[in-house]
């Protein structure tokens, strides 16, 4: 029987390997016939296209372009994950609110965005943003924000001097704040007085920042967008494509996260809520100290899944022209790069992203798991 088992597996493995070899043979045969190289040397060729909003120049290699693309993907994924979590948690909690109107509004949001393809949301927002007035006659809100079809400009910091001193003092302030935090915690453990850690530590840090700002001779100012004839100067510009992609991904993923959060809160044992009511905790306290910490633990694995989905869905930017990994790969193929290798490399990049997110969330999960369960 044992021999049979291994013989069966050997045959299976043989078939799989034979299939792969067959495909490989076809691939090399086709490449030879068409005169394409089978290696990855194309990655070192000059890209021949520039990437907007970056330092990338068209004389740099395709590999460099892909690295820039990975950076742009990460930019969407990271900020998208933060915002989607925020929106999702708020909507998820709101769906269980005691206020009927709040509950219904959250349900409306969730059920709308969960059931529409994310690609459609991306294209819709992008087309919408492109309809905005041209840059010369762009709309301004209180001089703080400027909105036009070239993107959204928000106030940002502008460097006017050396930041090194400022950062050094800010670091000291951060350390001091941490020390205050520890002190308040110890005091709370000893005396049982309310710790007010956030208020104390935050105050110290903020005071430190202000001191650092003046001590280092005001190293930066806030730059407001100013609209000129040929565009906006100053401020920080969110390109139309980036803004459309980010908002669409956040709205879509947020609706899925809201469902996870709702499920996780409902999964917290009813006795816990009743016990906290019996202890006289307020609604906010009940959420903050009893329900959410337990719901959070349950929801880490499905949340990790949503984070992966958001990162993978950022590839849909290819439809609207934001220069992330997939679009850069698409351009390199259309310029005559070998498609199989290019897509293979693209998949490797995404696998790395996926592995990274899986690693981080697994670590978090292990750390927060209730021991002994």
């Amino acid at each position, binding site marked *: 029987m044992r021999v049979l*088992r291994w013989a*069966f*597996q*050997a045959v*299976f*493995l043989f078939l*799989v390997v034979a299939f792969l070899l067959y*495909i490989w043979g*076809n*691939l090399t*045969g*086709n*490449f030879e*016939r068409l005169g394409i190289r089978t290696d990855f040397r194309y990655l070192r060729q000059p890209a021949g296209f520039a990437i907007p909003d970056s330092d990338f120049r068209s004389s740099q290699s395709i590999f460099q372009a892909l690295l820039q693309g990975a950076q742009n993907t990460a930019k969407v994924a990271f900020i998208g994950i933060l915002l989607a979590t925020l929106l999702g948690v708020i909507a998820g909690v709101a769906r269980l*609110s*005691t*206020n*009927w*109107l*709040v509950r219904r*509004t959250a349900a409306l949001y969730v*059920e*709308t965005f*969960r*059931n*529409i*393809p*994310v*690609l*459609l949301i991306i*294209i*819709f927002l992008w*087309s*919408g943003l492109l*309809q905005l007035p041209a840059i010369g006659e762009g709309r301004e809100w209180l001089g703080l924000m400027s909105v036009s079809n070239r993107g959204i400009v928000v106030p940002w910091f502008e460097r006017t001097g050396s930041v090194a001193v400022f950062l050094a003092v800010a670091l000291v302030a951060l350390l001091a704040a941490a020390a205050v935090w520890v002190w308040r915690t110890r005091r709370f453990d000893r005396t049982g007085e309310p710790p007010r850690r956030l208020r104390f530590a935050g105050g110290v840090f903020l005071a430190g920042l202000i001191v650092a700002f003046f001590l280092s001779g005001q190293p930066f100012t806030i730059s407001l967008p100013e609209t000129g004839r040929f565009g906006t100067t100053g401020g920080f510009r969110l390109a139309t494509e980036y803004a459309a992609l980010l908002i669409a991904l956040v709205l879509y993923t947020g609706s899925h996260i809201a469902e996870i959060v709702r499920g996780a809160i409902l999964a917290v044992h009813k006795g816990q809520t009743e016990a906290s009511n019996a202890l006289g905790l307020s609604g906010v306290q009940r959420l903050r100290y009893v329900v959410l910490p337990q719901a959070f633990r349950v929801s880490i694995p499905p949340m990790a899944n949503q984070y992966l989905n958001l990162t*993978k*869905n950022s*590839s*849909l930017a*290819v*439809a609207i022209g934001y220069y992330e990994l*997939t679009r850069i*790969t*698409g351009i390199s*193929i259309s310029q005559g790069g070998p*498609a*199989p290798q290019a*897509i293979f490399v*693209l*998949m490797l990049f*995404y*696998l790395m992203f*996926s*592995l990274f997110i899986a690693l981080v969330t697994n670590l978090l999960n292990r750390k927060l798991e209730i021991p002994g369960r």
Partner: protein
Amino acid sequence: MTFTGPRPKEPYQIPPGEEVEGPPVTARDPRAWAKENLFSSVLNTILTVVFGFVLAFLTYRFLRFVFVDAEWEIIQRNITNLMVFHFPREELWRVWAALFVLAASAGFGVGAAGTRRAVEIEEGRGVAPGRGMLLRRVAPLVLLVGVLLVAAGSLTATLLVLGVAATAIAFRLLGRRVPARYFRFVALGVLVGIVASYLVITAFGGVPRDDWGGLLLTAFLAVGGIVISFPIGVGLALGRRSSFPVIRLVCTLYIELIRGVPLITILFMSAFALGFFLPPGTERPSLVTRALVALVAFTAAYVAEVVRGGLQSVPRGQIEAAQALGLSPLKTTRLIVLPQALRAVIPALVGQFISLFKDTSLVFIVGLTELLAVAQSITKQPDFLAQGLFVETLLFVAFVYWAGSYWMSRESQRLEQRLGVGTR
């Protein structure tokens, strides 16, 4: 032999003349309701006012757009394009015929499933369904069909749709009469119905799938994708839980690699590079086929994970009992494990189908004219060019996707409750 144990207790009888206090009647006084649900505290009052204003404003803008400002002419004139795109118009009767076949087999299946459920509830194996009102259940679907018919504005189409609905109801009644023990043949019959409806369109001088477009292509890719990927996914799931390490490794690798990359990369691979992997000289399959291959390869990995969840939910005792009865491993899987596992994952599979339905919009990027692509292309017609009509077309497409997905997701929730998943 005399029974010496304690006598069973008599059921408690209410003494005559005593009033029984039922559960407290909830007051349906609207003012009390509003006080409790909208203005229970200062914070709640503020929230109510703020949300009320925002919601009222958005509703007003939305309704005003839909009923006053929007120019729906682009949808009305292109409704056939949106449904089937370049499908030859003189062959449209085939699509209607396919709809009749589908309605018949679906109605038959639903009817037979109802009979089987009734038997199960009688035997105490099933959970009695909640009082689901049929009209509320099918509301999104009816709304969708209604909107499509209003957009089409054609009497023939309306009559045909009524005919399709009548066929579904008639076959549902017919399906009711099928004894529960023949249910597996009915399930097979539904599958045959789906294949038949495909053949009605393509066979005997019909229209090959490469000429399909619009909602027809979307539906074909979604249904075809799930039907083909289901057996592959079940195989992968069994392989991943197999006791053969080599098979386990290969299946796990496949599932995890596919799940680690976006669908669009697989679509790219299939659309742009599949030709390189075929033997030299073979003709490349059409773009529709290549997109279907990518969707199947992708969905199979996800179906596998869903099914694996079902396999893990089968109690270990079931397998041990089967072994104790002397069943071979193959028979244990086929007769004991799979039926229970697959039954438990039906709602999750519906969820997977919904996601595939939404994901078919991605084939637009590799150049197929499914629903979303048609919506984008009709705004470039000379009559409608550069008028910002994308809002109308995209809103319409979003509604079609929304109605379909929302309807199916609610049905899957119902199924979940009925199957008692997670409550056993």
